[in-house]
């Protein structure tokens, strides 16, 4: 018997607005607990929420980029439940009429393209954080995050396996970062997701009972949690039992999901329209302006890089797929003409360094200006490609200016032909046996002479000139 998995994702995207969804409180990450909390975030008696229009504009950008319906009139509802980090005792969310309706996004898995439909994307406020392990026998509450705008993106249950789920999550992350509506920083919780997993027999028309795995915030854990959950459910079904509808938590240490609460224990959230907020109406002009100013998305960038910068399509794809990579490429190309060389270095040496350190380009010390300068110095033959690698490594460590590194380390390429010829002649004179062997047909020894010249010049010799001179002197 074969089993079929059905997965749906609810992705919470923290929108990068300066202030919160309903207050002027700051949204910046990492502040002292409870310092970014104003009267509204605290839910003091008598305070009222005012919707942050900037958050709507960001949500609309997402909708436009995923070909979604935009609800120009959308409303807020209250979701009622008690928890210490939920100051008002309810969360303001969009239940009945979300800002973004049906849309879709394309993903690629093993070279195959698949369209995943998006049910809706709605705005809601984040809760604060409960801290259970810092105070003996007590729970601390940090409300800095309370009220931060979230866009909850709900997919249709059209994802078939863990790989697709990860590809979908990555595609959403790519779009929201390119749209500049979220920093995409998963370690800081800027993107988190709930995964709904169910399993059914291949020929069943109805979906199986689902379990919801809450609050996963890394690609790796999404994949592992789903795979664990699929196995768990299949085991249950094959033993003749049935899956219980419930909410589960993924434990990344033990690599397993655990029951958090069953359907019966679930809260009745008593949703109703929030009487403090009028419907938010987006005018045609407002919508048009957002549309006209929509940032360029990866597909368009890729096309442009091929057409305007003459990149290979594979290089263009790699660069266009990451916001920071694309920014670096465009930033460097604005300062230097050799876009092909810029692309080569980005896809080659820079990507290698990023992989080695497992960091994103924005976390490195490389700036677009300094990178452009490096390319310039290669183009104008101040340094060789080989020296450039060591300069890049130096930048990676210190962030120092390319020219400063070249100067302080005396890395300027030796172009002086007569000087190089003199050095080459000395080496030939000092190695008569190697000269004899080379002339006797041991062609490989040519490399030995090049190496010796390079060694003598500490790698600063222009390799092309060295080749020519040696060929001439040894002929």
């Amino acid at each position, binding site marked *: 018997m074969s089993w079929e998995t059905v997965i749906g994702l609810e992705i919470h995207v923290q929108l990068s607005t300066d202030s919160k969804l309903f207050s002027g409180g700051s949204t910046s990450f990492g502040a002292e607990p409870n310092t970014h909390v104003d*009267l509204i975030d*605290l*839910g*003091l*008696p*008598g*305070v*009222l*929420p*005012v*919707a942050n229009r900037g958050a709507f504009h960001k949500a609309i950008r997402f909708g436009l980029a995923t070909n979604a319906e935009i609800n120009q009139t959308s409303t807020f509802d*209250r979701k*009622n439940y*008690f928890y*210490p980090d939920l*100051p*008002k*005792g*309810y969360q303001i969310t969009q239940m009945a009429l979300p800002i973004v309706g049906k849309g879709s996004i394309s993903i690629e898995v093993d070279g195959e393209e698949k369209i995943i439909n998006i049910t809706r994307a709605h705005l809601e406020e984040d809760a604060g954080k409960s801290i259970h392990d810092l105070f003996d026998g007590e*729970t601390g*509450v940090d409300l800095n995050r309370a009220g931060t705008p979230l866009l909850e993106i709900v997919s249709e249950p059209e994802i078939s396996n863990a790989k697709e789920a990860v590809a979908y999550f990555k595609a959403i992350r790519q779009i929201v970062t390119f749209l500049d509506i979220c920093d995409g920083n998963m370690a800081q919780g800027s993107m988190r997701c709930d995964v709904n997993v169910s399993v059914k027999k291949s020929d069943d028309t109805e979906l199986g009972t689902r379990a919801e795995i809450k609050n996963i915030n890394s690609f790796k854990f999404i994949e592992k949690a789903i795979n664990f959950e699929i196995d768990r459910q299949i085991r249950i079904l094959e033993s003749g039992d049935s899956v219980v509808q419930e909410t589960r938590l993924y434990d990344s240490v033990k690599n397993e999901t655990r029951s958090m609460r069953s359907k019966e224990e679930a809260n*009745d959230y*008593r*949703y*109703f329209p929030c*009487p*403090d*907020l*009028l419907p938010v109406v987006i005018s045609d002009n407002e919508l048009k302006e957002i549309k006209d100013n929509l940032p360029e998305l990866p597909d368009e960038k890729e096309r442009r890089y091929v057409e305007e910068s003459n990149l290979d399509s594979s290089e263009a794809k790699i660069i266009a797929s990451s916001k920071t990579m694309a920014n670096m490429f465009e930033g460097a190309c604005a300062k230097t003409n050799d876009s092909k060389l810029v692309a080569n270095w980005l896809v080659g040496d820079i990507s290698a360094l990023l992989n080695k350190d497992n960091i994103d380009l924005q976390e490195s010390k490389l700036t677009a200006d300094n990178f452009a300068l490096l390319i310039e110095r290669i183009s104008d033959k101040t340094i060789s490609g080989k020296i450039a690698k060591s300069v890049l490594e130096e930048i990676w460590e210190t962030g120092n200016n390319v020219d400063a590194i070249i100067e302080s380390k005396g890395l300027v390429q030796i172009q002086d032909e007569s000087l190089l010829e003199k050095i080459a002649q000395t080496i030939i004179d000092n190695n008569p046996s190697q000269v004899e062997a080379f002339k006797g047909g041991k062609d490989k020894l040519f490399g030995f002479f090049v190496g010796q010249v390079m060694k003598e010049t500490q790698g600063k010799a222009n390799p092309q000139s060295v080749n020519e001179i040696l060929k001439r002197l040894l002929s």
Partner: protein
Amino acid sequence: MSVQYKSIKELKNMLNNRDISHTELIQETFLNIKNNSKLNAFITLNEEESLKKANNLDNIAGSGSLAGIPIAQKDLFCTKDLKTTCGSNMLSNFIPPYSATVIKNLENAGCISVGKTNMDEFAMGSSNETSFYGNVQNPWGENLVPGGSSGGSAAAVAAGIVPAASGTDTGGSIRQPASLCGISGLKPTYGRISRWGMIAFASSLDQAGPMARTAEDCALLLNEMCSHDEKDTTSIDEAIPDFTENLNSSIQGLKIGLVKEFDLSKLDNDVVQIFEESKKHYESLGAEFIEISLPNISLSVPTYYVVAPAECSSNLSRFDGVKFGKRCDNPKDLEELYIKTRSEGFGDEVKRRILIGSYVLSAGFYDAYYKKAQQVRRLIKNDFDSAFKNVDIIMSPTTRGAAFEAGSKGDDPIQMYLEDLFTIPANLAGLPAMSIPNGMVDNKPIGLQLIGNFLDESRLLQAAHNFQISTDWHLKTPSGSKS
């Protein structure tokens, strides 16, 4: 010179003519507060700060249209650094770090907030008997309730302690106590006055308003209380007229609607008699009466008692013992923290409404109760819209009778809920409405309700003022008629 029972207008003249200093006025006010302490009208006094402000006004020429006028603030408005209890044990220790917009507006106009008035707990009640801080006595009789929920404010004005008080009205909480205490009170159009800093009971119904001796004083207060407030998205962004401008214009030709569905035959004879006399009086002023129909009006009370508790059940969730207000002692876990804090902090009426509200919003019941109630509310609003095509204002008694004795409604909440029969419809429709004294039953005052069209407070005040310059019901005081 006594300041008791003086109107705002009279006090302004006295201050301008230097018949009395600002300090003397405030000292006298606190003397009156203390002489009337048995009324239990105040929860918290603001004596030191008030005298300081009065002293400042004596030394530096005061600005603002209400400079130096003492005002009592309902204890539902947040007042910076001054305890705000909302009549509840839950907030017995709550000192707000900010002031409500309406408090700021009044204080910017020069009003001196002398204290915070007693009220039904979280504004839920019609007799002030649900306050954690004890009953308020109606100045008209020792055992009489002042009405509610703005009972302390009404009693303070009726006893002549202050010329003005702020109130809030969710289902009649300004108009019903105004009626029972023989003063004038106005609930403006929903959204006229910012709700920022008003502790919410039912957000879609709550509206602040003035309570005073005369309609003219209400107009003076309203001029300062209204503002478009960006902190309250339901606050209306419309021009605010000078509400005193048309007070003295004739009401010749004013079309007054009488609601066919209001069955007055069930009221006391005296009440009906008084209402008929007021009609005659308005006719003598040139008004004409037109019978109108509000077909769904009989559904107002049940609709209100679904919508208001639903919103209250959610609004009061923030009182959980975690961040502010009362917290129970030694809870053994989170669940117990919630249960004990809320069991100890809330009184029975508040608990009853939270339970009703949670029920009508719960899964499986939402459509049958809350959704249906909202649909009916829309119908009621439509009824008013149609009616106002033919009339300028609508008139009815404010209450079914005069002030009743404390405890007389017993344990039957429905009897108490019916107190708001005539006042609730204006809240559901968001319309302005006011109550002015129009007669006495057994030496107890009773009020006449005027309901106006959307944003048409000016016309209500004009009609009320015209009535008051030709009658003297508003001049009667518990200690006799005022000259």
